[in-house]
């Protein structure tokens, strides 16, 4: 029987990975469809808003990466225990989300060396600003909010991994509480398994 959920995204981590991490953490099966940038133009008009990722479930297609991630977080009980926790988780995600496209501009899509240098300067500022705020507000016991793994932890983990592996190693050492959150995520057995199994991707991002 086909899995209930079908996620379609490019063959990268970026905006699709938080949802993949959620499926992994919850042990929920799904179809992980990856298309190349060349294949995209043919697909574009069949998506609700002309963008990826999309999630197909029960005959409905959802769009917008964080809305999809929040939906799967709700389905799997990882959005927060109370309304207040959910709002706090949302706030962390809203604060962090912009780092992915800004990093893509430096790591994957810079126009030339000068463009890359200029965008790196802006990215460094943005990282310091956003991670600084999150560090201030983060819980101290390995979770951003409350005392259980929530989707905001996975959103942070995805971004931190990309910063360390694809952009500037050593950045996260300035953010001890956030590092503790990432370590907690990495130590989750299902996440650890996913990380050994997941495709490398068209770009390491």
């Amino acid at each position, binding site marked *: 029987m086909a899995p209930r959920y079908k996620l379609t995204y490019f063959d990268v981590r970026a905006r699709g990975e938080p949802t993949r991490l959620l499926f992994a953490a919850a042990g929920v099966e799904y179809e992980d469809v990856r298309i190349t940038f060349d294949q995209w133009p043919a697909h574009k008009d069949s998506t*609700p*808003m002309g963008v990826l990722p999309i999630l197909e*479930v*029960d005959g*409905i297609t*959802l*769009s*917008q990466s*964080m*809305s*999809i991630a*929040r*939906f799967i977080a*709700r*389905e799997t009980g990882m959005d927060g225990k109370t*309304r*207040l926790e*959910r*709002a*706090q988780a*949302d*706030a962390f995600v*809203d*604060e962090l989300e912009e780092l992915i496209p800004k990093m893509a501009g430096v790591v994957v899509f810079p126009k030339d060396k000068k463009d890359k240098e200029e965008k790196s300067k802006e990215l460094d500022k943005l990282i310091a600003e956003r991670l600084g*705020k999150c560090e*201030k*507000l983060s819980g101290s016991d390995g979770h951003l909010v409350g005392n259980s793994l929530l989707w905001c932890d996975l959103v942070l983990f995805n971004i931190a991994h990309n910063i360390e592996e694809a952009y500037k190693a050593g950045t996260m050492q300035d953010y001890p509480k956030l590092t503790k959150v990432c370590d907690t995520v990495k130590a989750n057995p299902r996440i650890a398994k996913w990380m050994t199994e997941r495709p490398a991707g068209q770009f390491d991002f």
Partner: protein
Amino acid sequence: MPTYKLTCFNVRGRAELIRLLFAAGEIPYEDVRIEWDKWPELKPISDTPMGQIPTLEVDGQVICQSMAIARFVAGKAGLLGKTNMDQARADMLLDGGMDVGKLFTEMVMEKDASKKAEKKKEFGEKHLPPFLALYEGFAGDNGHFVGDSLTWSDIGFFNMMDFITAEYPGALDGYCKLNKVIDNVKSNPGVAKWLKERPVTNH
């Protein structure tokens, strides 16, 4: 009964969706407005989690990020959507709206007059029409984006178009379903009352 205190600048801006949701839910709250020139002295001593406003104080706990706050209030007002799927569809439509809203805000805030005129033309010709056509497709014949009753995605659309039609008055002409969404929101008793009473501000 919890107490709510919303703090924002004295504008509609990022807080107006939140205020509309409190109104639609007929939930009382304290609507604290700070003047731009007072913010530098208030910012260091204010209890803002991320050093920015709006913030919502709920029984002593402070939440930041306007959309996180809006979603929280929508939940309290019963306007998120009935099922997880409905809630996800509402989220998705609001996210899509924000992408366009960002471009609009950039245009409005442009200080250089000739650049602004260029951006205004570009937005009105290149970005707004496909957005409205797309959302006309998303709207139900009943004038709701999700399900068969008012949700915060209807109110979010209304709020955004409230700003946009100030610059592009005829933008919604001919969009039957979108106009129905607007009418549904405006005729909600709490919203209607707020629209009559709210302070008039430029933004």
